């Protein structure tokens, strides 16, 4: 099982995502933003950080990176992609997920240990969670307020595509307390809090985040050998 983690200029949590993949039992692969080759990975994580300095808009430049063209094409035919924080922003900018992430309502960067409720497990990234399960993982962002029009929000709810919601105080003013969503097929998930920072009690508030990585390993094993990523864009 090979999990690729993209490094854009300004990516910060790429090392953490690779560590989480390793702890979960996968081989972690560095994917370089300028290299369109996905090097036969079975799944991709777009990590947190400030890709391209968040210039223009968060994720707006990263979505044009050469590696993204390949990822977008592969994701449309089933490649599992998890976007965390900045990665979530990139997925929205790349139109793999609907909506957008705007400046936190209180205008501050906020880093705290956040309680979430899993709302949908219909995704290869969520096998190891139960519907309605509550987890605590860190949230840390300045622009994490999920926004979309009412129709989109209704559609996400109706289709069970809200993967996780904030429980307790909404840390950034996200609409309908949305912390994470998925695409229709379920292979693409965007999450604003950081599961990769909750994989070891020594350095995180819990190990509640490791499930994203163990889930995808199991899912990949079930799907193997249908690698979707060997071809170049």
């Amino acid at each position, binding site marked *: 099982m090979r999990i690729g*983690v993209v*490094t854009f*200029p*300004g990516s*910060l*949590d*790429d*090392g*953490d995502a*690779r*560590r989480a993949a390793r702890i979960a039992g996968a081989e*972690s*692969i*560095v*994917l*370089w*933003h*300028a*290299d369109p*080759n996905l*090097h036969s990975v079975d799944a991709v994580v777009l990590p*947190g*950080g*400030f890709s*391209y*300095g*968040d*210039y*223009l808009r968060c994720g*707006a*430049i990263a979505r*044009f*990176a*050469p590696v993204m*063209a390949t990822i977008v094409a592969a994701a449309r035919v089933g490649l599992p992609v998890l976007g965390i924080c900045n990665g979530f922003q990139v997925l929205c900018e790349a139109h793999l997920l609907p909506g957008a992430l705007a400046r936190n309502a*209180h*205008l*501050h*960067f*906020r*880093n*705290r240990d956040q309680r979430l409720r899993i709302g949908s497990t219909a995704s290869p990234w969520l096998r190891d969670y139960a519907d309605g399960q509550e987890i605590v993982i*860190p949230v*840390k962002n*300045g622009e994490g307020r999920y926004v979309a029009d009412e129709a989109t929000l209704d559609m996400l709810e109706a289709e069970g595509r809200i993967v996780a919601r904030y429980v307790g105080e909404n840390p950034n003013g996200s609409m309908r307390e949305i912390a994470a969503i998925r695409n229709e097929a379920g292979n693409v998930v965007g999450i604003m809090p*950081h599961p*990769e*920072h909750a994989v*070891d009690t*020594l*350095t*995180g508030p819990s190990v509640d985040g490791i499930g994203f990585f163990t889930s995808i390993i199991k899912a990949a094993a079930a799907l193997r050998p249908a690698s979707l990523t060997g071809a170049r864009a």
Partner: protein
Amino acid sequence: MTIADHEKPDAAHGADAAPTSANGSAPEQPKQTPDKATSPEKAPDKNASGKASTPKSDKTTASTKSTASTKTAASERTSNSTKVAPPAKDAAAKAAAAKDAPAKEAPANAAPTKTSPTASKSAPDKTTGSAKTSGSAKPPAAQQTGADKPVASGKDASSDIPAARRAESSDSAAVASDAATAVRPHRPSPTPRRPAKPTPGLARAASASTVAPTLAAAEPAGAPSGGTPAPRSGRGTMVGESASASVEAAPYARGAEPWQAGGPGDTPPPTREDFAGTDTVARALSTPDEAQPYRELGLADDEYASIRSILGRRPTDSELYMYSIMWSEHCSYKSSKVHLRQFAEKAPRSDRLLAGMGENAGVIAVSDRLAVTFKVESHNHPSFVEPYQGAATGVGGIVRDILAMGARPIAVMDPLRFGAIDHPDTARLVAGIVGGVGGYGNCLGLPNIGGELVFDPCYQANPLLNALCLGVLPTDGLQSKNATGPGNVVVLLGAKTGRDGIGGASVLASATFDADSAARRPSVQVGDPFTEKLLIEACLELYAANLVVGIQDLGAAGISCALSETAAGAGTGMRANLDRVPLREPSMAAHEILASESQERMLLIVTPENLKAVFAIAEKWGILATDIGEVTDDGRLVVWWHGEVVVDVPPGSLADDGPVFARPMREPSDLPLLRVDRAESLPRPKTADELRATLLRMVASPNLCDKSYVTEQYDRYVLGNTVLAQPEDAGVIRIDERTGLGVALSVDGNGRFTRLDPYVGAQLALAEAYRNVAMTGAEPVAVTNCLNFGSPEDPTVMWQFAEAVRGLADGCAALGIPVTGGNVSFYNQTGAVPINPTPVVGVLGVLANVAERVPIGFQNDGDLLYLLGTTRDELCGSEWAWVEHGHLGGEPPRVDFAAERSLAMTIAAAAVRGQVTSAHDLSDGGLAQALVESCLRRGLGAMIGLPKTVSPFMALFSESSARALVAVPRGQEIAFTALCEELGQAHTAIGTIHASSENLEIIDQFTVSLDELRAAHTGVLERHFGGVAASPTA
């Protein structure tokens, strides 16, 4: 990136078998950029990026406003420079700026004015044919506009700049193209700041005018209106030269320098007439008596006299600027040097110390393979003038110091001090400074693991922003800051140089604030953490590939400092050509380029053979790398600009030979009175109810309340190695995932104690930081400090400083841990009133296994609580006296370093043996504060029987040093107390953790629920600052 990755050869991205594109070609080019499809010469072209991109993107910016504002620009430039040459558009402008030309002759209203006959008259015999061609062959107005601000096509504007910038500039590039079309049909060349083979006329003309001849040469060679750039050499050789078949074969071949044969040295000696504007060494020799504004630059009469004596002539403008900055208090430590020597003289021996005082930061070995480096620095003045950027660049500066040692920065801390919490200006400063620390540090990906937050009216118009950075490096990976090896190349890496931060060190940091301080905002630098992040990754990759001979960060005094310190360090000389320096603003004068404190820049010394590899790594990370000069063996720092020598000095005279003062010192006259006004005489709470109410007020006071409003604005998780962070006593960072090796860090200071007794106050700060580190179970090993004081010209401040340094040096000797580096910040006062003297002390400790770290929060129901140390009747300078009575007087608590060492050994031994589950030092607010914090951390109550040796009030609020509150698991108490006996550690059993009660119960006194404590303790800062937004760039 794990820290362990750093130990591997490819620190940046090799650790996970990175399929990084091997050639690193055009890695950062988003597809939408227009250049992709139309750049056949990309590959060779890329090599030149460091050089060639700069002028082009400058032009991009400039061109967007060129047609509209040529007039304004021209008049501005002329009017603001009577002495230093403006970048005259042509000889006419040059003439207009000349001293003998009255300012009113300046072409204030139309470009054509500047092509008046004056142009050809000014130096007809020295103007090259091509220059003439350009002047005569084009319609003056249009041509001048086009030539002055050459307009880049979209391709040019974007091809070589980092991708993000490219996207940002795409709009302006489009505008630029339009402008180009409108102004002139031909695509102008990239601006060469320096003609490859300068001719006298060109050499003296300002940068903009050198473009015209280039165009003339380029056009016949067939670079008409298309988007195809002519080949450029790695040296950024101009288009004209390349097109006319003088192309250098190798892209990294070094082109003709002004100091080489064929350069201006072979031309006839300049005449008086030629000096219009630029103050060169030759001109300085011919005008020895010209009055110079040295006092305005902060130099004293005798300092100016020594400069003249060192040089044997008057300094040029550029030299004067350089000396004024390098000899400023901020850079030269001229008032503090004589005292700081004690840190070295009294330093205890340490086998761990790999680099100490005098380096960018001290380096401490923590294992056979790994070393850490750490340092704390101030950015106080900029943070008052422009809080967000001042704080942001404060973080950026210390991070580059750590980077320059060869280390990967892995954590930051931020000791902050503000005025009264309810003062109207405090909200502005808190929002800006906290926003800046977070905005920069978060974007760099560095966890913020602690700091301080103190409110005191003495910091009202002088907040303190100190920033600490921790880095890790292989023990054999130390980088040198010396420019060794004559013939080696001097490379400027990172951001472009702009006008920001000019005079930051001299004007801002080395003078007292007054009513005009707000006008100094342009002296504050502007930060770009994204560029710094790329700079860090690029430097680490350069280190790993062993491509760097020497490296120095550009901080205070910018290029001046980096050039002189690297050359002085190696005892070599250096030649640099300022025309090569990539500029944000092409109109910058030589002294501005030398003085600029633009952020995110590093100076590298590289062998010529490695230059190509260095450029390739810079290219991979999308940052500029520019060869700006070379190391020489003549012991002179020679700086060229426009083909002339503008600086020729011994580098050591700038870096090391600054003035040293033994300034007068005198104990403040009010100190004896202050010391007899003891806090013991203040009214105390008498009943249990009063004690309870006092506790609730204390935990809600500005300096004792919960700080998460601030710490939540910082990323503490990034990098995945943060084991402890605020509100713990110390931050703990794992540095080796395999072994669990880690370090603990704490920064502490107490301005009130230091005000009452600077010697003891500084020692108390040291003791507290030492104790905080020890509480985690770590062994304290090294010290850094940031000494924040008022004006050294005030003898009483100087006395405070001398006493504090003496105290700190003696304290370090007593504790057996050396000072490895630090920073002095003087002039922290507005008007005549200095801040409380505030030495901030950082202590670093080593934890063999971070899994054994001890947190502050109570963990288990039933654990036994012990108070370690001796509680005395010590309230002077305490938080209680301040909060309840606004009182500051008496003598601060006693310092007992033997007791501190014993306490540290006890905790360390108990931690390894599993005999403590939590430990919290007692300092501000005493035992009461420690109990509240330990209870609230995980929501566990406690039942406490206060020791009978002192009154319940004293037991709760005394601030005696060398004390701690520890929790011992049941079953371990006998072993633990035996350990205490063995180490001679005073200990008193004071109660148990009582999880189910959800109360803090002080037996025979009062009970308060955790909910009530939490309500009082939290939300205080939100109520004061919650409505204030951080800077929009956060």
